[in-house]
């Protein structure tokens, strides 16, 4: 059985291909000039440049963090390029028809054609290809509802004050090493604003791709849900095969004002590296939401890709009665390493948080859950429930759990449950003996393990998550 598992682990990454689009790429290296170039290229207001430079100078003083349960060679930040945009970016397509056919072909290969999504799912797509948005749909319908959904570069042109008011309020420039780097050089990303009392009429979705060799990808996403509003945001990505490691250091900030609700779902399928652990994406992302009174922030993530993942989508439950949720499936196979989890910071009274984490390790994968639940002195009557389950497939992988619990309020209630299980030969043989192939059996067992998290995903995404997991299992499990 272990031989078959090995075979399956070694099958190739299905989404590995490269689209050849001429890029306007900056030479490798990082300096003040580079930041000025990026800012000028985007025609940014002066305050934005100052903001970036402040972040850059802070970053220069900071040291790379090494506390995570992952190991990788040192990153040479001067060996990568910090800007890459498809040519003619001042002449960007206004509708999908104008999108480069090659780009559309790329999406078709991934099985996520934009036109199909528009028709079937009614999803507005802000497609990010490398660093600049090239296709935005349903803008009009959203505009009628008063919803702003555009690239952050456009937002800086059209709604500079709105961006200025919220940018960096959840993840400050100096928050951490990678957030500081992102703040200095971020290329593009999405901006969403939902006005007071508006329920966003459709799911908002962005597909990310990294397509330029040696180019770091620094996305910046800012979602502001004004009082009493509601939005569901979907993020998904996949990357072409690469030999060299690519750094991805995104920042996502969510602001949920009083009584607002933000649901942020991610399906992440970046190139995880080959069977020897060579190549693959480094995914060092800072994601955080700030919940005001009665606000509700929910993170759902399905992480199947990347060589190394360090990612802790968090909630600051500042307002009374605010709710934070984190549902996660993280799969590490081959030589993938994932150190992921969440932080729930309870500041307000009667704040509630739920953490459901499902870690799957296969091959030589290492899967770590790291989570912090903090009850501050003001968090009277606050509650947290945490469950961390690990599933091990094969005998070369590892699962680790590092829960940090800090309670400074005696009325707060914190629950933590954890379990570790394996996919056993007996289970696989029962399936085989009933005529079910090994691949299908593992997929069924793993899907069963992840059911609680998949349930949290929006319908059309849940299907894709199942598909992605299956593809990853082909190249990941046995």
């Amino acid at each position, binding site marked *: 059985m272990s031989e078959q598992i090995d075979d399956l682990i070694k099958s190739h990454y299905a989404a590995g291909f490269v689209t050849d689009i001429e890029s306007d790429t900056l030479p490798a290296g990082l300096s003040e000039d580079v930041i000025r170039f990026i800012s000028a290229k985007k025609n940014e207001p002066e305050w934005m440049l100052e903001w970036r430079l402040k972040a850059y100078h802070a970053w220069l003083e900071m040291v790379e963090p090494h506390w995570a349960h992952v190991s990788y060679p040192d990153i040479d930040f001067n060996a990568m390029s910090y800007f890459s945009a498809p040519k003619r970016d001042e002449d960007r397509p206004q509708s999908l028809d104008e999108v480069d056919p090659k780009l559309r072909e790329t999406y078709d290969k991934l099985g996520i054609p934009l036109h199909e999504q528009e028709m079937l799912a009614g999803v507005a797509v802000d497609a990010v290809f490398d660093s600049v948005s090239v296709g935005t749909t349903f803008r009009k319908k959203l505009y009628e509802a008063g919803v702003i959904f555009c690239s952050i570069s456009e937002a800086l042109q059209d709604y500079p004050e709105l961006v200025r008011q919220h940018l960096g309020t959840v993840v400050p420039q100096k928050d951490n090493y990678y957030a500081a780097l992102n703040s200095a050089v971020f290329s593009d990303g999405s901006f969403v604003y939902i006005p007071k009392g508006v329920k966003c009429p459709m799911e908002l979705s962005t597909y990310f791709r990294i397509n330029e060799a040696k180019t770091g990808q620094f996305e910046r996403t800012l979602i502001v849900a004004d009082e009493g509003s509601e939005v569901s945001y979907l993020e998904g990505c996949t990357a072409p095969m690469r030999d060299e490691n690519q750094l991805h250091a995104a920042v996502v900030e969510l602001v949920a004002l009083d009584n607002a609700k933000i649901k942020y779902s991610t399906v992440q399928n970046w190139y995880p590296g080959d069977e020897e652990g060579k190549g693959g994406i480094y995914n060092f992302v800072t994601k955080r939401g700030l919940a005001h009174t009665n606000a509700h922030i929910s993170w759902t993530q399905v992480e199947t890709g990347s060589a190394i993942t360090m990612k802790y989508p968090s909630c600051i439950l500042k307002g009374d009665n605010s709710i934070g949720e984190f549902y996660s499936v993280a799969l590490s196979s081959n030589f993938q390493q994932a150190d992921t989890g969440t932080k729930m910071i309870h500041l307000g009274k009667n704040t509630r948080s739920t953490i459901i984490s499902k870690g799957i390790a296969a091959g030589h994968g290492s899967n770590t859950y790291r989570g912090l639940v903090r009850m501050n002195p003001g968090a009277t009557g606050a509650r947290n429930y945490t469950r961390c389950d690990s599933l091990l497939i094969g005998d070369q992988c590892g699962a680790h759990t590092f829960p940090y619990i800090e309670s400074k309020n005696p009325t707060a209630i914190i629950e933590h449950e954890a379990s570790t299980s394996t996919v056993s030969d007996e*289970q696989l043989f029962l399936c085989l003996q009933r*005529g079910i192939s090994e691949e299908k059996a593992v997929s069924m067992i793993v899907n069963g393990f992840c059911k609680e998290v998949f349930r949290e995903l929006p319908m059309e995404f849940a299907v894709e998550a199942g598909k992605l997991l299956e593809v990853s299992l082909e190249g990941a499990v046995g």
Partner: protein
Amino acid sequence: MLSIKNLHATVEGEEILRGINLEIGAGEVHAIMGPNGSGKSTLGHVLTGREGYQVTAGEVTFMGQDLLALAPEERALAGLLLAFQYPVEIPGVSNMEFLKTAVDGMRKYRNLEALDSVSFMKLAREVCKRVDLDQNFLKRGVNEGFSGGEKKRNELMQMMLLEPHLAILDETDSGLDIDALQVVATGINSMRDGKRSFVLITHYQRLLNFIEPDHVHVLGGGVSSVPVTSHWHWNWKIKATAGWKVRPCNE
């Protein structure tokens, strides 16, 4: 249906089966008895292709096919089912999903139209009733938290849904009280249609009070097995006790 000739098999280098010969015709029920360690369960595992069992000599033909050349799942699809002695739990995978996946695969293999969810649900509920299991067991994880008897009845349910040509029941009677035993035996008897064959691996004669076998074989005395024919005096003893018609397989 099944023809075993001079089958030798080892587990971790130790020879457990030493020249088994067995002919099973369509519609026949064969009981295989014998003490612990005589290789009864090993025979079931070798026939179904369980990893860790090496066939060192011999031939097995199942419905005209070289059984030993087939992968475990191909043997299952060809119509060979093993009801496990210790059915394993698969938490998180609902029984219904498991059964539907298995039945879908089997129907596809047999070129039968796929069952839609509603028809399958109806069928599964009927089968549940036949093995005296509450319908809630369909929603629960595969064997998750089932009692010993419930697990055995779940095996029977899988057999009823998959309709194998040959079912090997590995100590399906062990750990059952008399009522459960009767349910299982009635279930098995209801599957006897003159074409389907059964191998009952059992420790105890009591199962055979409910299911009348056409043939009884005894494997081994002591730790290792010897060809069944040399032990037919056991059969005689059984015959004397229970009054069955007994025929060693390779007279």
